């Protein structure tokens, strides 16, 4: 028996299979590349050959693409990233008090008290300091992103980089590079700036207590970890499956849901081969003019999203109820 978790994020799509003991049996990390449907299908192609549909007893989705992912795979639970991350972190360590999560487009802080989320915050109107910015800088300096953190650790001193805005941080980095500072120092300066920005922005007004878990794709960056440790003054922990925590959380939540409901909606790995397309149209029903997305699988409509009134999205719920009746 396995539990499937799918986290469709802005940059990556992560798929995990957990076994009965909540240990990670399989993990797949794919780049979303702007096409969440294809990413999920690609992941399923890999799983299709190894597992049987009957072996999956629950499926859950999370991430910004959770609705679309759930519609195509037949998810039992659709949960927001914050709850999913907190659930996964607590599964691995009950004593965690703070979760720092930095992903591709957003960063979050989650404060836990006695094993429940007591407060959280997410970056609002700015994505400075998230994974995609680091990605871009690594590309600009021609350093593989995997080695980016090691460069920061090589630095003996640090250079102050203006980290409030990604665009200005980049100009500042170029300025410092033209003045002759070496790369490790600049990269370390960048990590420090991002941490400063995180703590002053998202962490504002929050008390960060130990034990701190650092998750999300950026946790791979050793430079960021050490910059956080310097700023906070204590050790922070990066869990083994730091980049899969969202998907793990989704799988755990799905397991609980199925336990309650008694059956799974999972539609099987066959969809890897089906022809899934999405079309969008502007609903003319009222002045709201919602942009509605329609998803087809082999020419049958399997989902609608984006309408405010429920005129379209309820259609699918109704027809599936009819099928059950």
């Amino acid at each position, binding site marked *: 028996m396995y539990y499937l978790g799918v986290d469709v994020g802005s940059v990556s799509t992560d798929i995990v299979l957990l076994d009965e003991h909540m240990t990670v049996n399989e993990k797949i990390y794919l780049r979303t590349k702007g096409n969440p449907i294809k990413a999920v299908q690609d992941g399923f192609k890999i799983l299709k050959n190894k597992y049987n549909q009957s072996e999956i007893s629950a499926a859950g989705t999370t991430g*910004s693409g959770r609705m679309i992912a759930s519609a195509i795979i037949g998810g039992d639970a659709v*949960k*927001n*990233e*914050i*709850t999913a991350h907190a659930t996964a972190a607590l599964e691995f360590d009950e004593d965690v008090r703070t979760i720092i999560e930095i992903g591709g487009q*957003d960063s979050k802080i989650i404060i836990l008290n*006695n*094993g*429940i*989320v*007591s*407060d*959280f915050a*997410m970056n*609002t*109107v700015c994505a400075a300091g998230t994974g995609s910015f680091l990605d871009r800088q690594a590309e600009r300096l021609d350093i593989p992103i995997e080695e980016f953190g090691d460069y920061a650790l090589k630095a003996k001193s640090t250079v102050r980089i203006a980290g409030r805005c990604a665009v200005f941080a980049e100009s500042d980095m170029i300025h410092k590079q033209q003045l002759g500072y070496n790369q490790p120092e600049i990269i370390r300066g960048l990590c420090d700036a991002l941490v400063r920005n995180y703590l002053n922005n998202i962490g504002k*007004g929050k008390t960060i207590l130990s034990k701190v878990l650092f998750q999300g794709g950026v946790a791979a960056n050793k430079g960021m970890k050490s910059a956080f440790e310097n700023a906070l003054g204590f050790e922070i922990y990066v869990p083994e499956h730091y980049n899969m925590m969202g998907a793990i959380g989704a799988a755990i939540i799905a397991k609980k849901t199925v336990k309650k409901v008694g059956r799974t909606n999972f539609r099987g790995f066959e969809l890897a081969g089906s022809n899934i397309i999405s079309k969008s149209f502007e609903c003319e029903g*009222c*002045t*709201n*003019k919602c942009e509605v997305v329609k998803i087809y699988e082999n020419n049958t409509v399997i989902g609608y999203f984006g309408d*405010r*009134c*429920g005129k379209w999205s309820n259609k699918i719920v109704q027809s599936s109820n009819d099928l059950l009746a």
Partner: protein
Amino acid sequence: MKVTFPHMGNVYLAAKALLDGLGIDYVIPPKNNKEALDIGTLHSPEEMCLPFKLMIGNYVQAIQKGADTIIIVGSCGPCRFGEYCELQMNLMKNLGYDLNFIVIDYPKDIGIKELYRRISQVSSKSNRKTYEKLKALSNSLKVIRLIDEIEEAAHMFAGYERNKGDCKHILNECKEEASKCRTSKEMINLLIEYKEKIKHVPIDINKNPLKIAVIGEIYTVIESYTNFSIEDKLMGYGVSSHRGLTPSWWVKNALLSPLKINSLAIRRNAKKYLPLQIGGHAIECVGEAVTASKEGYDGAIQIFPMGCMPEIVSKSILPTISKDLDFPVMSLVVDDMTGEAGYITRIEAFIDLLERRRESVLFRC
């Protein structure tokens, strides 16, 4: 003369009832939509707050339908809203529109004579008798009170309803039908009918739904387009919600404010954290958070447009209240760039947080 007015939630229903009663020709701008926002964003100063942009969009869309006179409420208040009318007059003039603006303001700011002169600009165009005009005014106040009551009941009962979606359905149907009414009398009868309907929605009194207070800046909490229909979303999640700031609250507050007996409970509750009137509705926001906590709500959501000064002040006060009273509060900032996905994530996570909190509190008992 063909008058129009900017949107703010259900105010258009009351305005419609009033203008129907006065027999004055009017245009209701299309409800707030993407196009209105695009038009507004194009012509407004970039850092201007969201309500301003939408209002400009409303004007332009109403002008396209033949409007030539705009009625707005002013407030020589210490937030940007006080400057809206002047800025908008200039902006529309620069865009080449020949318009007549009628700004209704407090008598303490413009004098009772001036207020009378401004009102008579509209009322003189009506050929109805004086008592008919007064009747139209009282009918319109009745309309706004009724629709606010219906809305409040629907938002509260949504957590208790037996058949999911009943409240939302009745509320939407009610608004839809009300905008089709031809006379104010017809509208009032319809609203009374719907009020009865919403009162008799089958509910399960044994349910114990989450209760959330919606607080913050008045325009963005009332106008569902700006807050991505947060109240509809909460109804969908089966959460009961309450919003203190309504158009009828505003009317009552405005009438009582010269006597300084307006919103006494709110001011009393806010006093410890914000003793001064700092403009906008900051005191109301802070006071309502405290009130909601005392009344046993599970949490509060604050909504305000980016750059709203009074609400930025209350936002920085709310964490203290949250800590003192052990009462979760989440702030959401909206502007024309807000992405809905992140917004929904926050609301869902906040509801999860409240649910888990409750479970663990019950667990400990």
